[in-house]
Each structure stands twice: as C-alpha cells, then as structure tokens.
C-alpha cells in the first residue's frame, strides 16, 4: 500500500487493557493504511478490537487501557507520541469520529446550533454568524430538510436517522482529512441505513476524505468500501481490496463469515456455520486465536502465524490459507 500518499497509516498498533483479571490484548499488532478519498471497512464480531482500534487512532483510550506499541501516522505525524493538547486540536478538526449511538456525540440539553457553532469555534477564529452559516450548510449537505429551522431544535426532536445525520454533519464541520465511523448504521432501519450510506459515499467522493467504516456487517462494506481489513481477537487476519477479500477469501475465518451470510446460501439449506464462539481476549492461548474453531487447524497453528501476502495486495495471517482453485 502506498505509504507516501496515505492519510493514515497504522503500523503494528498494540492497545492493551491492564485489568485485575489479566492483560487484555484488545488490539495486537494491527497495521493498515487509508488514503485520500478511500474507504476502508474494518470488519469483525463483537470483542474483536475493531472499536478499540478506532479509539486508539483518536487517542481516546482510557485507563486501564494503554497504547503499548506501534505507530499511528496521520499525514506522516505519529499520533501515539503526540501531546494531549495537540491531539485535542486534531480531534474534531482534522480527524472526526461518528459513533453507533448519535447521542454519544450530541448533548441532550443544548440546541443543535449551539453544539455545531461551538465545534467550529473551538478550532478556528471565526465570528458566530459565519460559523452558523457553515453549520447550516453542513446540515444541508447531509440531507436534512429545512436546515435553518432544524438548527434551533434539540437532539430529542430528531428521529434516530436524523440524529445520525446531525452527528455526521458535526464530524464534517471542519472538513476533516479522516473520519472514523464506528457502526453508524447498525441501529437504523434498512431504508434509513441506505440514506446514510448514500451520504457517506457522496461526501467521500466529493470532499476526498479518508473514511474508516467499522462494522460487523460484511454486506454493508461490500457496497461502500474500497478495501477491507478483517479482525479477529485483536489481530488483522485478512486484508485486501474488497473484491479480492469477498470473492476469494483466503483466511478460514473470512470464509466462514461469508458462508454465514444468509443471502449467500441457497434458501432453506443449513448455513455454513463457524462452530464455537468468539474467544475471550483475556489470557488468550498462544498461536492462532481462531484455531479452536477452524477446520484446517493443525499442530503448527499453536505457533503465531505471520501476515503473509499470497497474492499481491492481499494479506492473510494463516498457516493454512484457502488458496485452492484460484491462484
């Protein structure tokens, strides 16, 4: 991946949580890069570390969690060692985050205009009237009807889908270079999810932002992303262009995930399920974390598999990748 032009390059990121019960390696050596106008889908099931990866990039990991290794290069600058003051200046201006629950972003007792103007003026010396104008434009940009009136509303006066649009509008206010979206459509209805995906795609194309879309739903990123990183138990197990990963998955976990998607199977037939359940990250045994659920596992899987690149630009962390049938 082209490191010189990447907006964000994450190298060997390690975020551990030092709990009383032991060390939880929530993010364990994750690397990826996202360039301008590029959408990366970060896919995995609950507890795989995908959200913590997002929080680590934002510098929002709270104790007992700590980034213990690796680099987060944002426009070439390492954010892991950046001062809290500098991070504060970057957050909301150059990097923005959208959460699953928009009420995490919105203050319930402040009007939308207050919150939006505050966000702009926290990063830029600009008078209230121009800030208000920009807030209005941002609301219009994400498809909120009659933005002038809606500016004066409180968050509870919006529906779930509209609130998520407001959250996206706030993320856009300062025209960030990178947006991290953490399951922003999971709580929404299908037609509303379609609207949000449409806005996200349009904004990425028009403004050339880099976008990391964190989700558990492979089908959502299939329609949106340029490339995909699949995470399992804190590690990236497969990474590549969206067509490569979805059409020719090589990691047994990705193969299983795709087999688990109902619409991909003939009707009424049992799905190709992955046995067992996602392991607890607490005191994971050494070796490949997926080996207890994997049909291809052998003795060697008790060692740690490295990330290999069986095809150009398509990486996998497995001793027994599924490479048969297509070279």
């Amino acid at each position, binding site marked *: 991946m082209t490191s010189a032009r990447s907006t964000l390059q994450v190298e060997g990121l390690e975020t551990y949580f030092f709990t009383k019960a032991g060390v939880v390696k929530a993010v364990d050596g994750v690397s990826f890069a996202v360039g301008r106008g590029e959408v990366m889908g970060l896919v995995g*099931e*609950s507890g795989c570390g995908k959200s913590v990866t997002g929080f680590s990039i934002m510098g929002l990991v709270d104790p007992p969690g700590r980034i213990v290794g690796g680099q987060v290069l944002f426009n070439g600058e390492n954010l892991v060692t950046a001062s809290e003051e500098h991070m504060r200046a970057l957050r909301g201006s150059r990097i923005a985050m959208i959460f699953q629950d928009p009420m995490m972003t919105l203050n319930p007792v402040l009007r939308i205009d207050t919150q939006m103007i505050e966000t702009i003026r926290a990063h830029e010396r600009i008078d209230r009237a121009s800030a208000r104008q920009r807030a209005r434009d941002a609301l219009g940009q994400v498809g909120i009807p009659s933005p002038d009136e809606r500016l004066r509303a409180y968050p509870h006066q919006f*529906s779930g*889908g*509209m609130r998520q649009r407001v959250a996206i509008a706030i993320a856009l206010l300062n025209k960030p270079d990178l947006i991290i979206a953490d399951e922003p459509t999971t709580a929404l*209805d*299908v*037609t*509303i*999810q*379609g*609207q949000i*995906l*449409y806005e996200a*795609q349009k904004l990425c194309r028009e403004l050339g932002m880099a976008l990391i879309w964190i989700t*558990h*739903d*492979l*089908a*959502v990123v*299939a*329609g*949106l*992303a*340029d490339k995909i990183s699949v995470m399992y138990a804190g590690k990236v197990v497969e990474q590549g262009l*969206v*067509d490569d990963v*979805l059409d020719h998955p090589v990691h047994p976990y990705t193969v*299983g*995930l*795709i*087999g*688990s*998607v*109902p*619409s*991909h*199977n003939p*009707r*009424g*037939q*049992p*799905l*190709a*399920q*992955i*046995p067992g*359940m*996602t392991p607890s990250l607490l005191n994971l045994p050494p070796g490949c974390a997926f080996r207890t659920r994997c049909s291809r596992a052998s003795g060697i899987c008790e060692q740690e598999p490295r990330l290999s690149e069986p095809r150009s630009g398509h990486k996998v962390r497995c001793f027994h990748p599924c490479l048969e049938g297509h070279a």
Partner: protein
Amino acid sequence: MNTMLEARDLTKRFVKTLDLAGKIAQKLGASVREEVVHAVDHVDFSIDPGEVVGLVGESGCGKSTVGRMVAGILPPTEGKILFKGADVAGMDAADSKTAALQIQMIFQDPFASLNPRMRVQDIIGEAPIIHGIIKRAETAAYVEDIMLRVGLDPDYRRRYPHQFSGGQRQRIGIARALAVKPEFLVCDEAIAALDVSIQAQVLNIFIGLREDLSLTYLFISHDLGVVQHISDRVIIMYLGRIIEIAPTEELFKSPNHPYTKALLNEVPRLDARRRDFAPVAGEIPSPIDPPSGCHFHPRCPHATERCRNEVPLLKAVAPGRISACHLNDTH
C-alpha cells in the same frame, strides 16, 4: 383447507389516556386529545401447517405487535385470531390453555427474556412440569434431551443465564419454548442481537428444528437476507398495514409494491460492490399521525392524487400473491 393460524381483521390500537392535568386542560378548552397509535390496522393473513412465514418491516410498522397478539401476549383491539380454525378468544379455559402452549414465542433480547435468578434446568423444566407434560422425576432427562437438541452442553444445566454468551442464551430461550412441545413458534427478531457467525448457528437450529419437529414459524425480522433464507412466504408491513404477501422467491425476484422494491434495493449485499446508493427519500411517518390514503405515498416516487385520498386494498396480482398498490389497477 386446514390452516394452522389465521388472523382476521386484526387490529391493535394503543391509546395514551389523558392525565389529570390533560383532562382539566381539555375542560378549559385546550386542544388536547388522547393520542391513539394505530399499531396494527386491520390485518389479515393465514399460515399453513409446516410453513415458515417471514414478517418484514421497519421500526414502528407493527410487526412485533402482530407477533405478540398471535402469541397471545397482547389482546387484539378488534378482529380475531383463529388457531386451527377455532377463535382463540372464544375458547373455553382448557382449550385456550392448550392453544397457548402450542404457540410459543422467542424474543429478541436474550439478556432480558431469561430470569437471571433461575438455573437453566429450571428455566427449561418449569413449564413442562406445571403443565403436566412431564413428571418431576423425569425433569433431568427431559431437560438434557432438549438442551442437546438446541446445541447446549447438558453439563451446564445448573448454571445461571449470566454465565452464558448471547448465542447460548438465545439457545436457552429456544429450549424453553420447545419444552412445552409447541407446534407454532413466533420468533420476534430472534437472531438480530447476535454476531454474524452466531446468527448462522442459531438460524441453523431453527432450520433443523423445523425438519425434526415439523414446526410452523412466524419469523419476524427486519433483516431481509435472513427472511429470504428461512421463509416460504413473506409478509411485508408498513405502518400498521400489510402491503404485500408473496412466496419468497417471487417476492425477491419481482417485488410488486414500490415500498417492497425500495426495501429490496436498500438491502446491503455481498455481491453489490461500490454501488451507487439511491435511497428512498423521507422518513418513516409516525403511527400516531399516519399519512392519508396509502401510508407510503409521501415517500413513493409513483404517488398520484388517488394515493393521497384512497386507501389501496390488498388485491391478487398473481396466484398466491397480493399487493396493496393503486398502480396495479392501471395495468
């Protein structure tokens, strides 16, 4: 023909009655009214024995309310539910109890639907003992058999719900429903809260149980992919009304109603890469104040004057298919 379950003119209205302050305000001439939510608005459908019927719709369309009325948890405001041809409301005590046992429900949230203070063996074993299906002495063997059927290790029967993961809890919920030997299961978003790989496991259990026990399902879900996979027939609801019923394959091949088309168009699919999203405009209206005529007309690209004024009726558009859209009359 014998139907397993039939809903006739089923209606549920929730009324928010005025409190004291509201009543006084009304007396003084303020324009305060009781708010009426038309959750389910004159719905008719039938389900044959052994059939899996998917019930699809977005939030607030009344799909869960239909499920709860069918399961006997909520009484209908109007209309009736016929179970094997007999009106559930008009049954005597014994028949009504039998019907209640034969229709079981599986809930969405595996964390909220299990009593946290009961052991798994009691959660599963309590109902069959009370209803005289098994004797107390047989409980252990019976519970073990059911746990194996849903893929739970019987060694865990003395554990409490909090000691299980989400997928395992959902299996406990299924085991509890199966314990009273039902013929009909209402699954309300039964796999929505689970991870993808666990969803597939639980869905496989449903598919397996259908074959083994010849169960009939009403499978309520917002996830069209899941419904497409498991259902024989699909009912689409929008804002309290059924707008289309069709056999699964035909529905997904050629949806008739504009809302169904929009819904199918929006479903994210693995094989639709870097697509151009073309969403339906507008929001789902509030069921307190639904639009006149066809409920979908404010969002419909083909809406005409007639759609604004006249409620479209469900009419046959092909054998076994009905749809409620005025557009079908013009052809």
